[in-house]
């Protein structure tokens, strides 16, 4: 439940960031931003607890990370400098932003549906059908 809520928050934030990217698609020298959330989790789950991960290092508890003991990861906004830059110093690709928005929207809807199913289940358990 906790993870689902955090993930929903991340999806909301991501939607805002992508909207901002699209709004600034013609702004000279604007660099697109993105939200890092899932990658943090995947790195944390795949690597040893004490592994140093440079900039994206997450402080993990000494007990290590299992599925039941997920690291407390906050979604973070970062500036993407890896993609190609236009003549005006802008690296926003409008169509790829649109694809990202659509993808994020699907994820948001699935998560919202999932949370709603879970709340419904709890209601059933409490009220006894």
């Amino acid at each position, binding site marked *: 439940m906790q993870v689902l809520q955090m993930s929903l928050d991340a999806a909301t934030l991501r939607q805002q960031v992508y909207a901002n990217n699209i709004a600034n698609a013609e702004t000279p020298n604007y660099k697109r931003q993105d939200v890092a959330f899932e990658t943090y989790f995947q790195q944390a789950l795949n690597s040893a607890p004490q592994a140093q991960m440079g900039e994206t290092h997450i402080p993990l508890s000494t007990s290590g990370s299992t*599925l039941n003991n997920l690291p407390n990861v906050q979604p973070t906004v970062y500036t993407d400098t890896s993609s190609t830059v236009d003549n005006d110093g802008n690296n926003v690709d409008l169509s790829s932003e649109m694809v990202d928005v659509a993808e994020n929207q699907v994820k948001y809807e699935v998560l919202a*549906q*999932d949370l709603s*199913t*879970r709340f419904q*289940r709890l209601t059933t358990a409490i009220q006894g*059908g």
Partner: protein
Amino acid sequence: MAIQGVQSVLSGALGQMTSSTQAPASGQPSFSDFLAQELDKVNQVSDTADQLAQSYATGGSVTASQLMVAEQQASLAVDMVSQVASRVTSAYQTVMNMQV
């Protein structure tokens, strides 16, 4: 899928109930064992749904359809337990209100 176990649940439960005046035959689980076993299965279904949800939320290789099917299975299992509980209670009350 745990829901398909309903048929065997019913036949097993009825068989146990009708023969409950005798001591349970060796090798056959008692009714309470049986109930506990089925509850464990419901728990497993729910755990699977939890794991899939966690994996989906953290960017794992779980598709939306897999997650939705698992969640619906878990919900159905919980509904099933809830219904069984209320039916058992109502059966108990029916027996208790009988004039002897």
